[in-house]
């Protein structure tokens, strides 16, 4: 636009003035030639011609006409919407829900998957991974420290490259843990990313040297919360998992790390991992895969050149870092590894990996909801357009072009959808907060930075316009396609029976029925899958079990002292009031953590390949009683199964079946296939316990073997007892036990850190994704059903008013109430049937995308489909019955008198 709007108005006034002067001059001249004033005025006007036309065409010359039209349409639209507040409010709320849901899910998708990292030139960054020629899986993005050091020292393609790992540090020096999100980063982490310090300084390569003293960089948010943003935080000392770390600086605000969905509180150099983990340090371990690597290629070097170069240096890197203990075959495979790179500009994200598919499904679900909302408003608009038929005919008759009228009707629709979008953005903000709370758990806090930025606004505006046009185009086209003469005569267009009463409205409703059926089926599938998970027989009783995670790392105890301490703790926990039983284990169920090995029978055939793999847990004798996993055959451990006594194990049903078939496993011997290729010590099977889920609820129950905690040393796994878990079964609510249980530990040793969590919480946290999908799809399914029913009701109610005359005549000719009821209900049934057929068809095709997310449920589950159809039909028939009953109660006398 060349001219601003006010200037246009000024121009308009000037043009009027100019034309007025022209006329005045004309009149003057005519009068000078002797005419009367009246005659002169007529003559001048005649001479001038069509004043309005002159004005309009002149305005066209300015190229502003569309703007004028638009302003006029908007004013007119606002006035009309104001006249029908009921319609307007319903329409705006419907749209706000539809658009808000889309904006909320899109914000999540945008933040998790699309947005670039807030660092310098994120598009340049590449993330490294290892691929093996023989493997078909995804390249593995995790590296060992020895490999990282090789890459750091040998590469010549990066202007900067860094490695990092996520960690949790305990700020407390004993007692209940205060965990913070930590990062272990290499020296070039911050400068490669181009992050500036907010205070002090950030790490440089010199800070990350073997044997370094503890230094730390704080995240901005942590600095604000923990130190109140004080400058003297720099130089202060922070205790991280019991070790002193000097704070050297604070990272810039809005830098949260490169793992999307998390936020770091404290970063330490990789070399300081040795301080935190002491003798368990993995800095020189060639089998510990814990680092991610990101690099910024040198200027002018393409990603392909980087790949080529990495491939060249890969053999020597792997040759220098091969784990010597491995079997020859494994070593050969290791040596064949190739380091590859891929774009890393959007960061790495566990959240993205696990929520990629749910987010896609939710995006589709909210898209459908919006479509249904559109359909709803379209049918409302159709009904309203019919009411405006006369106005539209008049406007067409006095020369409005059809295009112009359609534009005007569409403007009204877009106005509506913009109002809905504005409200929808508010809804979306709440929605996002709720969504993040949903996917976040205390163990896995998810941090996502949402902002209503230009992308979100752009997306929302785009869908608002699209929506407006979508629901407006059909009513606009239809209402402007009228026969002038009949409309002007005042007759109703769709009066004649059989000429397709309100046909497009009917198809819209059938479409709505179909779409909402799809959503109801999707919701039904997710709800049933979730309920399958909830009611799954896990093999243990998750109610009333408090779990205490204990960490003796800071206490510096010898393994023997430590184990005595733990067994004393169990004795004292058992005696607490309200405690039924207490036990110890190194792994708790459904924690997502595992420990496994390949097992063999001493005699007889063992399973081969992955079938020989069994999960391991080490537990105290009361473990099975505390979790209520009954021993089926044999016995559980007892005090006799101590360190030094013969090694024993309890296996679960699956393991018994897989390794021993029908034979009695009790008394049989097994051994572990150790990584070095040698056979481990013999373990005697003393019992079979009922099958229980181990790592996740979704897994097929794996073969599992339990060792007594007392024999961990003999299994060369003494390190596992440094951070055991204690399970307490309580008679009442388990939360009440926390205080007295904590006292048991702190009274014995003040440097033990503790964390509390109920087994139920742990199980439920593992189901967050399923819960999210079930809840949201349930909510949107319900919303869709409601919208579709409002649509159906509205259209039928309208059809009934349109067919008043026909109904009146039928009744006058002797049709009974029931036949009128049947007449309308037949219509409803046809619409419903059409909708159901299409809806089931779409569902059969669409739901197979969900199969992977469903638990113990076929995506084409007939029960769910039948149930959904039943629910939908019941509600639809009810929605149809109300207007039908009204039709049946019409009084023919009144109607025929009216007409």
């Amino acid at each position, binding site marked *: 636009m060349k001219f601003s709007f006010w200037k246009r108005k000024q121009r308009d006034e*000037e*043009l009027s*003035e*100019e*034309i*007025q*002067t*022209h006329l*005045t*001059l*004309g009149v*003057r001249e005519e009068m000078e030639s002797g005419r009367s004033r009246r005659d002169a005025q007529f003559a001048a006007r005649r*001479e*001038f*011609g*069509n004043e309005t*036309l*002159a*004005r309009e*065409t*002149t305005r*066209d*010359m*300015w190229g502003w006409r569309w703007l004028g039209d638009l302003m006029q349409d908007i004013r007119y639209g606002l006035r009309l919407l104001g006249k029908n507040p009921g319609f307007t409010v319903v329409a705006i709320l419907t749209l706000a829900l539809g658009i808000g849901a889309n904006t909320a899910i899109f914000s999540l998708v945008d933040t998790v998957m699309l947005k670039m990292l807030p660092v310098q030139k994120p598009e340049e960054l590449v993330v490294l991974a290892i691929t093996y020629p023989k493997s078909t899986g995804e390249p593995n993005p995790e590296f060992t420290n020895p490999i990282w050091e090789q890459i750091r020292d040998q590469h010549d393609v990066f202007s900067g490259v860094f490695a990092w790992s996520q960690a949790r540090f305990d700020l407390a020096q004993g007692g209940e843990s205060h965990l913070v999100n930590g990062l272990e980063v290499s020296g070039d982490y911050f400068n490669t990313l181009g992050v500036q310090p907010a205070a002090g300084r950030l790490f440089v390569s010199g800070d990350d040297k073997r044997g370094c003293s503890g230094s730390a960089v704080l995240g901005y948010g942590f600095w604000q919360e923990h130190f109140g943003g004080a400058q003297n935080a720099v130089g202060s000392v922070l205790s991280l998992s019991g070790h002193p770390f000097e704070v050297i600086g604070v990272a810039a605000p809005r830098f949260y790390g490169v793992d999307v969905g998390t936020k770091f509180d404290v970063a330490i150099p990789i070399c300081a991992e040795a301080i935190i983990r002491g003798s368990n340090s993995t800095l020189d371990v060639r089998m510990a895969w814990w680092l991610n690597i990101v690099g910024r290629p040198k200027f002018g070097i393409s990603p392909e050149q980087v790949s080529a170069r990495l491939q060249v240096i890969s053999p020597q890197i792997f040759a220098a870092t091969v784990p010597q203990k491995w079997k020859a075959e494994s070593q050969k495979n290791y040596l064949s590894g190739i380091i590859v790179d891929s774009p890393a500009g959007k960061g790495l994200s566990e959240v993205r990996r696990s929520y990629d598919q749910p987010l896609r499904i939710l995006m589709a679900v909210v898209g459908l909801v919006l479509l249904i909302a559109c359909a709803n408003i379209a049918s409302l608009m159709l009904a309203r357009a019919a009411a405006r038929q006369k106005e539209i005919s008049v406007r*067409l008759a006095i*020369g409005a*072009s*059809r295009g112009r009228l359609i534009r005007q009707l569409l403007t009204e629709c877009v106005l509506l959808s913009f109002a809905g979008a504005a409200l929808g953005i508010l809804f979306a903000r709440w929605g996002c907060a709720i969504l993040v709370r949903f996917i976040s758990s205390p163990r896995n806090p998810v941090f996502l930075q949402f902002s209503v930025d230009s992308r979100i606004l752009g997306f929302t505006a785009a869908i608002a316009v699209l929506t407006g046009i979508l629901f407006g185009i059909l009513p606009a086209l239809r209402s402007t396609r009228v*026969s*002038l003469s009949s409309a002007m005569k005042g007759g109703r267009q769709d009066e004649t029976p059989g000429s397709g009463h309100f046909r497009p409205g009917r198809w819209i409703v059938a479409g709505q029925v179909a779409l909402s059926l799809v959503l109801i089926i999707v919701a039904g599938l997710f709800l049933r899958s979730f309920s399958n998970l909830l009611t799954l027989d896990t093999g243990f009783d998750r109610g009333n079990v408090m779990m205490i995670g204990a960490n003796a790392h800071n206490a510096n105890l010898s393994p023997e002292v430590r184990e005595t301490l733990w067994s004393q703790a169990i004795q004292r926990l058992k005696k607490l009031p309200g405690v039924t039983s207490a036990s110890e284990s190194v792994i708790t169920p459904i924690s997502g953590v595992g420990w496994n090995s390949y097992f063999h029978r001493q005699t007889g055939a063992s399973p081969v390949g992955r079938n020989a793999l069994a999960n391991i847990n080490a537990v105290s004798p009361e473990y099975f009683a505390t979790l209520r996993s009954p021993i089926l055959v044999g016995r559980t451990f007892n005090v006799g199964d101590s360190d030094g006594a013969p090694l024993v194990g309890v296996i679960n049903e699956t393991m018994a079946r897989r390794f021993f078939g029908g034979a009695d496993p009790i008394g049989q011997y097994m051994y572990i296939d150790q990584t070095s290729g040698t056979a481990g010590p013999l373990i005697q099977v003393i019992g079979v316990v009922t099958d229980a889920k181990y790592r996740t609820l979704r897994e097929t129950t794996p073969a599992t073997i339990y060792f007594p905690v007392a024999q961990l040393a003999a299994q060369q796994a003494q390190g596992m007892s440094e951070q055991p878990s204690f399970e307490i079964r309580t008679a009442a609510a388990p939360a009440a036990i926390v205080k007295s249980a904590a006292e048991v530990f702190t009274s014995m040793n003040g440097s033990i850190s503790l964390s509390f969590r109920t087994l139920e919480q742990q199980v439920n946290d593992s189901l967050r994704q399923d819960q999210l999908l079930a809840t949201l799809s349930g909510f949107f399914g319900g919303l869709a059903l409601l919208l579709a029913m409002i649509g159906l009701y509205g259209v039928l109610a309208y059809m009934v008013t349109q067919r008043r005359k026909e109904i009146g005549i039928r009744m006058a000719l002797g049709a009974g109430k029931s036949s009128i009821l049947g007449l309308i209900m037949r219509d409803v049934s046809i619409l419903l049937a059409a909708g159901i057929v299409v809806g089931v068809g779409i569902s059969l095709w669409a739901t197979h995308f969900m199969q992977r997310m469903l638990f113990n449920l076929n995506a084409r589950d007939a029960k769910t489909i039948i149930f959904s159809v039943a629910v939908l039909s019941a509600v639809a028939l009810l929605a149809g019955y109300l207007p039908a009953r009204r039709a049946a109660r019409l009084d023919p006398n009144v109607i025929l008198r009216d007409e």
Partner: protein
Amino acid sequence: MTPPKEPYQNRTEILQGTLDMLILQVLQWGPRHGYALSKAIRTNSGEILKVDTGSLYPALHRLERKKWIEAEWKPSEIGPRLRVYRLTKSGRKQLVSERSRWAILTSAIAGILNPAKNEGD
């Protein structure tokens, strides 16, 4: 059903496309307001060419947009102020090129209307 909306038409007898040239030509004689312009065209053509005001003002504003003429408000002796148009430098150039085009056109038309004479030459 719907009367087709009439597109913008030059309703004068004046040949399509020549109005711009006539306006530029009249303004070459000095600045004028719209009424004077239409009068000048009428009188100078011996009352043959009548400029429809429905075409005049759009034309004036079009020429103004193309920067061939400039407008200015001037007080008048009759009371209301007048919008007076003046030729610009580029307008002058435009007039020259339009006139030469016009000359070519008229001679071409003359050639068709009087073929014998041309052949005879």
